[in-house]
């Protein structure tokens, strides 16, 4: 990758033109300049990078993106596009990468919950964000995290005070709408769930089919002692959207994260989840599914590091690819010295519905501690003809039978999802997605 690629050039132009929030702050300006320099030097991640092995950025490298959407705050958003569960519950809405105060509903949050857009926080009190934004490039960074640091314009800062039990789900909605040219948005977010607090986040991605934006989200999530975070991702980004996410989660003693992910939309979609189980008896459960058709590409990187004694991680991810779609699943469990008694598992099953579809799956275990339990498994297969025949022999037409089996296969992502209406909403979305599966 060289600095002359159209994508690289458009990002450097963006950095030169874009008046980013907090640009008057000396430390922030310096950090952004340094990150941009590192980005130009390193370029886009290539397939020699183990975490990008099956995701090629050759097409992306030839594209150019505008620097954000200056009209984001005045873009009309059809309310029918907003996810139904978010309409009556607290929600933070981002339109084309910018926080929308008018579409968000954050007035009735309980005591002890603080929600702020990054742009507002930089305006009002930037100093507490210094630890998040003023960083030097390191080995964990790739081109997109550097780009994010160089060009972050907004994001979400969410803090739950110790002991607070937030009963209602908090929805975070990312909406992509057409804006003349394709634009790139870089969001930086922070979630802190205080000691013994409890929070349920539902993250939605929706978008117009013709909105071919690039959304680059980097976030840090801290779940403190005895706290519990439920995190549901319902990703239905627009058909032409590029969505890249890096989520770093740190789980302290007895902290728990339950993640459910349903990845349905977008053209090029990636989520790199880095779960650090630093605390004793910390726990990370994840259930995920993706359903891809056309030429969609989805890359799920689930990287779990056990550092705390008796920490537990369980992951079950199912993937479906039709047409010429491509799926990638990388589940890595790393058990560090000292994480004795850790228990980690990663299971991934995949279904190919077309001879041109492809799914690459790599489970990996690395263990450097004692008395550890670790299991992994991965399969790629097709719908079972015996099962299809069984359904048809009972009178169920072939297309309905296929739909039924694929739906059942993906439903693993909904196992244990709470509350029930959210699970039903997800089941309905899944059913909607599946008729496009070819008969």
């Amino acid at each position, binding site marked *: 990758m060289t600095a002359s690629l159209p994508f690289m050039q458009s990002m450097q132009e963006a950095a030169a033109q874009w008046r980013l929030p907090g640009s008057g702050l000396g430390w922030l300006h310096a950090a952004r300049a340094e990150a941009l320099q590192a980005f130009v030097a390193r370029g886009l991640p290539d397939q020699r990078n183990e975490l990008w092995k099956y995701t090629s950025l050759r097409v992306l490298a030839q594209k150019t993106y505008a620097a954000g959407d200056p009209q984001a705050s005045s873009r009309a958003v059809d309310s029918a596009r907003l996810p139904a569960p978010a309409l009556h519950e607290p929600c933070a809405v981002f339109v084309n990468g910018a926080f929308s105060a008018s579409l968000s509903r954050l007035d009735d949050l309980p005591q002890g919950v603080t929600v702020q857009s990054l742009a507002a926080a930089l305006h009002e009190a930037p100093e507490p964000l210094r630890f998040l934004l003023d960083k030097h490039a390191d080995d964990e960074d790739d081109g997109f995290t550097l780009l994010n640091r160089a060009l972050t314009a907004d994001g979400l800062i969410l803090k739950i005070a110790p002991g607070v039990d937030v009963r209602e789900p908090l929805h975070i909605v990312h909406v992509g709408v057409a804006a003349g040219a394709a634009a790139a948005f870089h969001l930086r977010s922070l979630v802190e769930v205080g000691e013994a607090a409890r929070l349920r986040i539902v993250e939605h991605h929706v978008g117009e089919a013709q909105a071919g934006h690039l959304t680059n989200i980097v976030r840090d999530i801290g779940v403190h002692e005895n706290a519990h975070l439920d995190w549901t991702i319902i990703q239905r980004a627009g058909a032409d959207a590029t969505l890249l996410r890096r989520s770093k989660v740190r789980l302290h003693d007895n902290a728990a994260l339950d993640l459910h992910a349903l990845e349905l939309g977008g053209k090029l979609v990636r989520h790199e989840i880095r779960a650090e189980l630093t605390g004793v008896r910390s726990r990370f459960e994840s259930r995920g599914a993706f359903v891809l058709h056309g030429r969609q590409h989805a890359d799920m990187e689930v990287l779990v590091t056990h550092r705390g004694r008796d920490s537990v991680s369980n992951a079950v991810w199912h993937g479906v690819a039709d047409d010429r779609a491509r799926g990638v699943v990388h589940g890595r469990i790393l058990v560090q010295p000292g994480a004795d008694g850790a228990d980690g598992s990663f299971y991934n099953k995949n279904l190919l519905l077309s001879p041109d579809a492809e799914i690459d799956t790599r489970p990996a275990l690395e263990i450097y501690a004692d008395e550890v339990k670790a299991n992994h498994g991965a399969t790629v297969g097709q719908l079972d003809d015996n099962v299809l025949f069984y359904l048809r022999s009972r009178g169920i037409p*072939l297309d309905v039978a296929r739909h039924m089996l694929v739906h059942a296969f993906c439903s693993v992502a909904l196992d244990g999802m709470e509350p029930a209406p959210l699970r039903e909403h997800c089941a309905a979305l899944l059913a909607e997605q599946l008729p496009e599966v070819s008969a």
Partner: protein
Amino acid sequence: MMLQIENLHARVAGKEILKGLSLEVKPGEVHAIMGPNGAGKSTLGNVLAGRSGYEVTQGSVMFDGSNLLEMDPEARAAAGLFLAFQYPVEIPGVNNTYFLRAALNAQRKTRGEAELDSVQFLKLVRERIKEMGMTPDLLNRAVNEGFSGGEKKRNEVFQMAVLEPRLAILDETDSGLDIDALKQVAAGVNALRSPERAFLVITHYQRLLDYIVPDFVHVLADGRIVESGDAQLARELEAHGYAWVRERTPAEAHA
């Protein structure tokens, strides 16, 4: 005539298994198909239900006046044909009730009948499950998932009771059952006997036929029917073994 099979030849993986099988079944009749392993018993059931991989090379099968062999498996089901599987498959994630309602309503839709709503359907399955002596918790489980061998076979008969086919084919429904389960399955089948409905009971052993007494017994050997008789034939087979049939009818069997 409900089912008319004439000179049926069928291949599986390039090997000819059925070699000129003919059989006629009228409404209300129960026909037992017996025979040694490899005779083609299960092939007959699978060909009739329309499983892929079974290639018919010669002959015809008419079902209620229609050419059965031209129909998709789901169309055969809607026309009233039911196969109770020798090895019922497990379908994780698909709820038994949901599956059965989808099946019944798909059949009714094809036949131009009104679909049942969930209240009507639940009433129907509760009646049937009671008649089959099965526990209702089975309804809320995934299709056959984690079922014992006996539960799977009973679930087949239960599905049959709900779908009410005109012709039911039982493919070795007795295999792997203990005597109590066998009696329950037989009682379930007997409860469904009626002047409008016919059964093809495929079995290796005479034991099941003590409980489901057939009107006709046919012996299948080397891909065709070599001997037909009444229930008495099954008892003679039990006494003498299949070799006895081959000895009795050499000319016919090797014609």
